[in-house]
């Protein structure tokens, strides 16, 4: 498969969870760029479906006192079955994001 990504991908593994109506257990990120994210989750998602999810940034990973979160709206580009580990890789484009501090409600868009 040809790779059309141009932004730098960071192999950052962070916990994530879906918001909204997605009935899928929490998963984790495999890599993230400013434009997209690859997730490991337990369950598939329809290609081209809109999704809302939150990536947790644990305090210890940034040397801070409190966790932060990255609230994202995106769209599913592709799902890859990983039968060996019983999980699904989900490639998503990030259409909109905002950082949210621990204890903070909905922030203003960046």
């Amino acid at each position, binding site marked *: 498969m040809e790779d059309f990504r*141009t932004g*730098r991908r960071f192999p950052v593994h962070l916990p994530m969870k879906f918001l909204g109506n997605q009935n899928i257990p929490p998963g984790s990120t495999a890599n993230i760029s400013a434009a997209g994210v690859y997730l490991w989750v337990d369950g598939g998602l329809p290609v081209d479906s809109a999704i809302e999810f939150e990536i947790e940034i644990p305090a210890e990973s*940034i040397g801070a006192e409190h966790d932060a979160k990255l609230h994202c709206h995106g769209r599913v580009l592709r799902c890859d079955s990983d039968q060996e580990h019983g999980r699904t890789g989900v490639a998503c484009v990030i259409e909109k994001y905002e*950082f949210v501090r621990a204890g903070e409600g909905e922030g203003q868009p960046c």
Partner: protein
Amino acid sequence: MLKIILADNQAIFRAGIAKVLAVEDDVRIVAQAQTVEQAMVSIEKFRGSVMIFASSFLPETARLVTLARESGIQLVVIAESSESPDRYLSAGVLGVIYRSVDSAELLRCVRRVSEGLAYSQDSRNAAQNPDSDDFVGARVRDRLTPKELKIVALIVQGYKNKEIAGLLGTTEQVVKNYLRNVYDKIGVSDRLELALFTIHHRILAEAAAASAAAMQQAQANPPTGTAG
């Protein structure tokens, strides 16, 4: 003389590699490229060189390999630690290193590849201790001022520009100016990429957090003036 072309969209990384190679008497950096197009021009101009390029150029790997073969250029890719070297080696790239590579291994790789021999850094070492030789993170940390480090810390903690301005006692526009400088120094394009870079380079995250903590402590306990 071993001629090197550095091709990476991150200026800070090119600077880090250049610093390592500059001390070698028989190595000379003949060109630096920020884009694939610049890399292509350099390949045609400096035949017989070794080009070290970033994996962000991956979509153009086939073009790079083809042109490099025609120009007698050997290729070394800087891969991400989660990537297997096989995809590059099978594509015709002779050397695979990771961003955590140390100076000695970088030189070993470049010299071996210049002789037409394949070299692949052990990816397990790349993933085991990314901090130990994170000269990219260290170099960025050393280039940022204490105030820029504090802004980086606040960004990854989720603060918005207006809130950062309030904490620093300045205006939102000044914070934006600082951020633009930080983006230029690191080679990122927005706050998300900045946050990801910082999380990925723990050495920078820790320095930023320490700088933020020191500044907050200084604000909480301002020095008492002496009567003149």
